[in-house]
Every structure is written in C-alpha cells, then in structure tokens.
C-alpha cells in the first residue's frame, strides 16, 4: 500500500477512534471481533447473546462483534485492516487459513497470550483432530470454535424399500457402491427418479474429497504445509472411484453436484444417501419427513474424514491488558457449557470432550443420538488441506477435481498437472 492510502487510512481510523472514545467510558477496554456466517440459522443473534453475557460478567470490557460476510470476505477484511494499521483484536477465521495469517505476520501465537498452567490445560483440552491445524512449526496459533466434519446421511425408508438393513449404513467403498446401485431407481423411459448417492463436487470440492483420500489411507499434505501429494496413486484412485459412481455405476448424477441443493435433494427424496457437513444436521432433522441415519464416511482401507470450520485468532498489536481481556473472552466462548449450547443450536461439533459430559449435551444426545456420530468420527479425522498459499493451492485441487467430474480430463492427468503447478506455487517455502 502506498503512503497516500496509508495516510488516508490512518486519518479515517483516527477519526473513528476519536468518535468511539468520546462515546465510551475512558476506562473500558473495547475488543473488536470479526466473525463470518457459514451455515444457516440465527448465528448473529447467538453471537450477540454470548457477547452480552460476557460483558455482564466482565464489567469494563466491551465486545464489539462485527459480522464480516463469509470466510473469504472475513479474512479479506481482517487482513486489509491489518495493512491499514487498524487490526481487530480477535477474529474467527478458517482453521486452514493459519498459514496465510502467519505468513502475513498478522496473528500472535496463543502460547504468548496464555500465562498460567490452568490456561495451558485449557488449550490442551480440545480434540487433537481440531488442534492439528491450529499449530504451525510447534506453535499454537488458534483456539477451535466452530468446527465441522462431514458425515454420511441415509434415508431409512429407501433402504427398507431396496431390501437393505435400514439401521446400517455402508461400511466401506464397495458396500457404498453396491448400496448406491441398489438404491438408484429409474422410470419407464430410463430417466432416474431416485439417485443412490450424492457427494457434492462444486465450490470447495477438495473438502469432501479429503474424506475419500483419507479413507484410502493417504494424506494430501505434509504437517509443515510445504508439500502436497496430489499425484499419489491412492489419490488418483479415490478420484476415479468418485467419478465412477456417476460414470460407471450411474448411481450419482453426472457433472458437478451442487453443495447448496444437495441437502434439499435428500430431504425431498431425490437421493437416498448424501455426504454433507454436520452443520446441516439440524436442518435435515427439522425438515425430513422420513427417519434417517447418520454414519461415518465409508473408506476403502479405513474410516476417514476432514475437519473444517473456523478458529479464534489473536491479532498482533494488542496491549498486554487487551490481550488478557481477549483471552478471557475466548475462554468464555469455549467453556464446555457454551460449546455444548453452540453445538446443539448450530450442529457444529463441540470442540472438547468435556462438552459432551454436560447435562445439556447429554439430554440432546439422548433425544438425537446421531449428534454423537460426528464426535466419534473425530478419531479418524484429519484437518482439511492446510498449506502455505492455501487458497491458491486449494483452487488448483478444486479445478482438477472439477475437470475430472465433468469428464474434461482423466483423473491421473488432472492430478499430475495440479501437482506440478502446486509445486511451483510452493517452491519458495521449501
């Protein structure tokens, strides 16, 4: 940014700052916190309630939640604010954006914010599957908050009609393929009236694909976030399997399957099975007029699923006093009780084992056992791809997957091209 824009930025920030300090009490600490909305439901209202609850318990600290769009827009606004010298104190951003935030030198490690052994124990209380991409080079940079993982949904009525056990989902790739073929129905003219399975493939195709690769026993990136593994034969095999569900088995619609309309296809009985995020549990539960089952994503050699969603990040440039206040707020937002409340209201997976021991969560699980499946699957979960230049490399993978799913390129060639291009993008980090 040139000096002129920087000066303009500073001038407007100063003007804004003066406005705020005049209206607020001088002694108050104000924390601005950017957050995205990525799932349905009254997210903004819940966040505002939590913030109000915290302010009541902690006089002297003001929380200013700023709804900033989807994940991409939120990190865009946060990083622009950082460059303008006006960073927020806290933000919820994609867990996988950790590399971008560290490379942009925008965030402070959590290790520098926490002070006491109790704080340390708190950080260690989260599920390891969620902490894996909250760390980079032995430092922790994030606290899990709204985390999700995909699961398999199936329509029990359709299972019964096809002669399958309605209480058992497919356990591996072969079974999933067999079930899907049996569940596909055609009318007299040969047009499909009911699909066996839908695994959404548009938009961020890589997320669900990571479920397939993990189920085939292969990791798509290294822990340092400097290398990807797109051209591995097992990755190619996973993509071929996904494509063949449409092309060879005719049990999945051809072309790209839309992420947004898939839950509706399931609810309306257009598809017997789907892979989708647990973030849609509440939606399906409220709208499906048939009993449905939830299960682990079937794998070839093992179970496997990606985790996704957002974490809390602490931004650079806070005074020690503000850091303490920010830490207090993040702790408040992640207590087992609040995690349980957040999980039951949204469908996000609660981020720590302790949350599942709370009375509220136990009552919810007793009423709706499917909610526990996502937690149990965490044992097999891996973080979604987290590498340097993450958005750029993710886009390479998405393009390759989409080229294959639309029949434009064979799986091995598409993934080989993506690998070569990704290595070029990542060469500065190796």
């Amino acid at each position, binding site marked *: 940014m040139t000096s002129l824009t920087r000066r303009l930025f500073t001038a407007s920030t100063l003007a804004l700052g003066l406005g705020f300090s005049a209206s607020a009490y001088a002694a108050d600490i104000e924390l601005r916190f950017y957050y995205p909305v990525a799932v349905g439901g009254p997210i903004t209202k819940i966040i505002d309630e939590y913030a109000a609850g915290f302010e009541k318990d902690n006089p002297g600290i003001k929380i200013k939640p700023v709804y900033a769009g989807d994940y991409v827009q939120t990190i865009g606004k946060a990083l622009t604010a950082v460059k303008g010298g006006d960073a927020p104190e806290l933000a919820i951003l994609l867990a996988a954006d950790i590399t971008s935030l560290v490379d942009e030198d925008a965030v402070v490690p959590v290790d520098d914010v926490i002070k006491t052994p109790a704080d340390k124990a708190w950080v260690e209380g989260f599920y390891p599957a969620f902490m894996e991409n909250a760390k980079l080079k032995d430092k922790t940079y994030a606290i899990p908050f709204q985390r999700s993982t995909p699961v398999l949904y199936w329509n029990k009525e359709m299972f019964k009609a096809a002669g399958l056990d309605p209480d058992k989902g497919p356990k591996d790739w072969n079974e999933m393929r067999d079930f899907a073929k049996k569940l596909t129905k055609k009318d007299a003219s040969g*047009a499909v009236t009911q699909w066996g399975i839908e695994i959404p493939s548009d938009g961020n195709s890589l997320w669900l694909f990571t479920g397939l690769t993990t189920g085939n026993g292969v990791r798509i990136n290294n822990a340092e976030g400097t290398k990807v593994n797109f051209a591995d034969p097992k990755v190619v095999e996973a993509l071929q399997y996904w494509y063949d569900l449409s092309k060879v088995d005719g049990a999945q619609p051809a072309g790209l399957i839309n992420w947004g309309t898939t839950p509706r296809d399931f609810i309306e009985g257009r598809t017997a099975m789907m892979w989708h995020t647990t973030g849609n549990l509440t939606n399906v539960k409220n709208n499906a007029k048939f009993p449905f089952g939830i299960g682990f994503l079937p794998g070839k050699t093992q179970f496997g699923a990606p985790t996704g969603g957002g974490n809390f990040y602490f931004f650079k440039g806070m005074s020690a006093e503000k850091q303490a206040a920010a830490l207090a707020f993040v702790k408040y937002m992640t207590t087992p009780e609040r995690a349980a409340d957040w999980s039951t209201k949204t469908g996000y997976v609660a981020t720590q084992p302790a949350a599942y021991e709370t009375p509220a969560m136990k009552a919810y699980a007793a009423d709706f056992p499917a909610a526990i499946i996502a937690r149990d699957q965490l044992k097999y979960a891996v973080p979604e791809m987290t590498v340097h230049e993450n958005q750029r490399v993710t886009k390479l993978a998405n393009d390759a997957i989409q080229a294959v799913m639309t029949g*434009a390129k064979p799986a091995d060639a598409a993934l080989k091209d993506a690998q070569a291009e990704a290595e070029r993008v990542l060469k500065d980090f190796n």
Partner: protein
Amino acid sequence: MNTLRLSLYGWLMVLPAATLLALFTHIPVVESFVHSFMSTDKPKRPSRFVGLDNYDSLVADPIFWKALTNNLIYALGSVPLSIAIAMMMALFVNDKSAGRSFLRVAYFTPTILPMIAVANIWIFFFTPDYGLLEQILKPLGLGGNNFLGSNNTALLAVTIVAIWKESGFFMIFYLAALQQISPDLKEAAAIEGAGRFTFFRRVTFPLLMPTTLFVMVNALINAFRVVDHIFVMTGGGPNNATSVLLFRIYEVGFKYFDFGLASAMTVVLLCVLGFVALGQFFALDRKVHYQ
C-alpha cells in the same frame, strides 16, 4: 477579473464531484497501474519494483486466458441478444394496446431485482432433476441436464441470466427514444404506402441508432463489469468454465492476496474497456444519424 471569478466559481461547483471521482476512481486507477509493476507486499519481502514480471506471469497463466476468452464469449453472447430483445420489447409496449403499462412493468421487473436474488432464482431454474427447465424438458424427452454443473452449458447458462437481467433496462432507453419519434413520420409513410416492416427498417431503426450506440457501449461495459451472479451460481466453476476477468481479479486479489498480479489484470481489463468504448465511438459514430 470577472472571468477569473466566474471560472473560480465553476471550479468550486465541480469540486465535490471531482474530489469523489478522483478519490474513488482516478487515484485507484493510477495506483493499480503503479502496483502492476511492483511485487506484492509481504512482511518478509516488502514490495519492490519488478518491471513486467506480473505481466509475464499473467501471460503464462492459463486461467487468465480462459477467463479472457470466457469474457469475450459472454460479451458477444449477451450484448447483441439483449439489445435485440430490448428493442423488440420496446416496440411491442410502445403501441397503444390494452394492458401495456402492465407489460412495461413486467419487462422492467428483472432490472429492479438485485443480481444476487436473480442468481438464486435462476439456480432453481437450472437445478438438475427438479429445476424449472428440467420439468419442461423432461416430458419432451430432453431431460437429464446439469446446466450449471457441466463444462458445455455453464457459460451459456450465466449468459442467459445476463440477457434476462439487462434487456428490461435497455428497453427503457428505447421506449424513451420511440416517444421522441414524431407521429408525422408515420402518417407520411402511410400516405406513401410503406408497410410496417419498411417503416421500421427505413425510419424507426435509423432514428433509434443513437440510442443503440449508447446502449451498446453500456451493454459491452456491463458484460465486463456485472458478474455478481457468477459468484452465486457457479463460483467460476466447473473448472473455470465461467470464470471471467473481474471474477478472476477478485480471486487473485482477495483470495490469494496477490495484489501485484491482480493489479496487472486490472490494467488489462481497463485497457479492454477503453478500447471497446473508443472503437465503438469512432467506428459507429459515422453511421449514426443524430437528429
């Protein structure tokens, strides 16, 4: 002294508008131009002059070429059709037929709707299996399409949405122009025994040319500028089949935070738009009959 005061007065009058234009249009344009020769500012590698490096990477980027080609197809597909439809609709509702106000409103409705809402409506039209288009095509034995999800049809689908959205807006300009055409001409033509089609070809159409030029410039600029529905409907997919220049600039600038490359692309986009406008004015101006 008097002229000096007058011109000072004039400058003061345009000052507010000029300031805003400079602040939000001219300075950013100049900055984009400067940034396109600089590397992207990173904490460990501050921005420095890199000459034509950004343009070199641009030329080497297949997605940039894909986006440019897509954008040209999108423009060539949407501009002539939306203009033709706009003209036809205007002629149709210009007659004194019953219910013409209702028709005018109906034709204009797509223009009032926000593009994001339009995109969501059209997503439903294009949905496989139970979307509106599928429900029409299925009984005809033409079902089984995945309009937004296949390489061959996705760009066509977003182009259709643009045509649908823009036609009503351009109709308003034609309607205004038609009201300006003197009824005497129609009477004179009738006395000479000219048919409706001849009258349109020899009188109405030439008299509409200034409007057509104006509309065409706007339509072409919009074809590079109004791409909101692509974000909602396809996100540039499948495999960049619907990625256009502006979409790609957003992706590179605000997803990859590669401002150098995004600035270079912005300069290319500005040049394209500049040439479009200049070319049209010089090439077509001579053929336009101004009253």
